[in-house]
């Protein structure tokens, strides 16, 4: 099995250029091991796509990056800092909830099920974290929030509640909400999987715009077209390990491993 989890087929990047670095990351729920030693590197400014069948551990790995899940083994760094721990000598110390929360401010996350706050309007959703977490004034947050809603094409829906928006609109508000914290890294957990097919395009357009502006993005997705077109690097995961990684166009057109080939033949 270990022979499958080979190192990426690209020249090593300097540590300062890495946004995410995973070294032998393990995660289990009780006796079930979901991640069995993940090694990967996400460079600053790149769009990093994670693909694989459901249950392969790709969403779990994504959730480890902002410590929504605690890893059981290995090391995980974001922008040079350990996730969830502080190293003193050769000992790891767990971070307090408060310290974890501070680190999460810089990492935006977009969920499959949007998870907008239903009791707040679109603009209130976007303003919530800047006001509550960063202590911005409401006027300031509203102004930036409106600019963000404008950017995702929903300025006219600012006063609507999530239940009055379509899935695609909700997801774009969710992206604006994450961007309001001015993150250095954006995590996307199957952002288009819960959408009607004709609404997928709007969300992908917003993500494409973000990528063009140089945002570092880790995207768990089933949208192979998006991965091929926008992705800078791609990893295929299965059974809790990285099976194959490399340039998306190369992996998607000429997969090297049997499992990758079998998966792609079903989804492409």
């Amino acid at each position: 099995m270990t022979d499958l989890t080979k190192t990426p087929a690209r020249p090593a990047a300097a540590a300062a250029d890495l946004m995410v670095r995973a070294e032998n990351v393990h995660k289990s729920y009780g006796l079930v091991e979901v991640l069995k030693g993940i090694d990967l590197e996400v460079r600053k400014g790149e769009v990093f796509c994670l693909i694989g069948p459901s249950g392969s551990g790709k969403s779990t790995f994504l959730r480890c990056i902002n410590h929504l899940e605690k890893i059981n083994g290995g090391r995980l760094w974001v922008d040079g800092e350990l996730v969830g721990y502080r190293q003193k000598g050769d000992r790891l110390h767990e971070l307090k909830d408060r310290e974890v929360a501070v680190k999460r401010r810089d990492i935006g996350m977009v969920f499959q099920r949007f998870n907008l706050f239903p009791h707040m309007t679109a603009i209130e959703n976007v303003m919530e974290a800047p006001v509550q977490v960063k202590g911005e004034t409401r006027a300031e947050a509203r102004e930036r929030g409106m600019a963000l809603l404008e950017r995702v094409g929903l300025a006219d829906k600012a006063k609507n509640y999530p239940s009055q928006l379509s899935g695609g609109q909700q997801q774009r508000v969710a992206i604006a909400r994450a961007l309001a914290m001015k993150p250095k890294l954006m995590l996307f957990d199957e952002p288009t999987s819960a959408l009607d097919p004709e609404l997928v395009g709007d969300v992908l357009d917003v993500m494409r715009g973000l990528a063009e502006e140089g945002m570092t993005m880790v995207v768990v997705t089933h949208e192979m077209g998006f991965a091929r077109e926008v992705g800078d690097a791609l990893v295929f995961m299965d059974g809790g390990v990285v099976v194959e990684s490399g340039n998306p166009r190369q992996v998607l057109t000429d997969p090297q491993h049997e499992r990758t080939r079998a998966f792609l033949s079903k989804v492409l």
Partner: protein
Amino acid sequence: MNSLDKGTAQEGRPDTIKAVPVRHPGRWAGAVVIALLAAMLLSALFTNPAFKWDIVGQYLFHDSIMHGLLVTLELTVLAMLMGVVGGIVLAVMRLSPNPLLAGVAWVYIWIFRGTPVLVQLVFWNFLGLIWAKLSIGVPWGPEFWSQQTNVLIPTFVAALLGLGLNEAAYMAEIVRGGIQSVDEGQAEAAHALGMSRAQTMRRIVLPQAMRVIIPPTGNETISMLKTTSLVSVISLEEIFRAGQVIYSRNYQNIPLLIVVSLWYLFFTSVLTIGQYYVERHYARGSNRTLPPTPLQRLRGLFAGKPAPKTAADVVPGIEGGGHV
């Protein structure tokens, strides 16, 4: 399929069905029996001299009844306030990852839900028998401040503690249910934005839990209004005790119990109506169309409109049968 249905429906549109509605002889028989019983009860109410309606009228707005009513309402409001605030605190403690807080909350709920509120009331009243005075100081060491228990906890405070602390235990379970009904993704999204646990609870989870918490809280308030009558056992003069005091002097037990009951009934009715509208308010967003209020229904009845529900049921039934 759809267009086909429409086509046939349009062709066969003209005649509305005039069918004989289903007869309900059982309902008529039942109505006659009920009407008979109601008539008997009413005649008994007005002919049996034991009710003494003149005395009921005489005491309905009597000074000490009014004073008792005020105490009852004060107790209800304050005890519910204690209950709601205490309940939220206990529920958050019980759901806390801190095992100490969760354990303390569990024990509190266990004790206060596990003993009758009547017993608790008497206990608070007799606290002076256990500790004659209460003091602040170093445990087993010097005292800085102390006071007689009976001075510190007069009857009203004992009543309030008994009712409020007990209510907090029940409200804690209601609030906990509300918090747990909120989708986990909500807290996750808040955490991912860098919000702390407390911020997430206060800004995101609790406001959404309210929809589930409010209806049973209305029930608890109605129940509390009546439960306050228990404090008569510790001689606090709320409305029931006020009535008792009067009839112990003039022996007009039945009229005074009617006076007291009328007041309870009046305020529970007020609360019930209030609860109905509060629930309706919170159902907005989850129910697409709200059923009409009783007032709206009455208005509709007098306007002589047919029940719209049955009409809507009948028409698509006909369209569906278009293939005949």
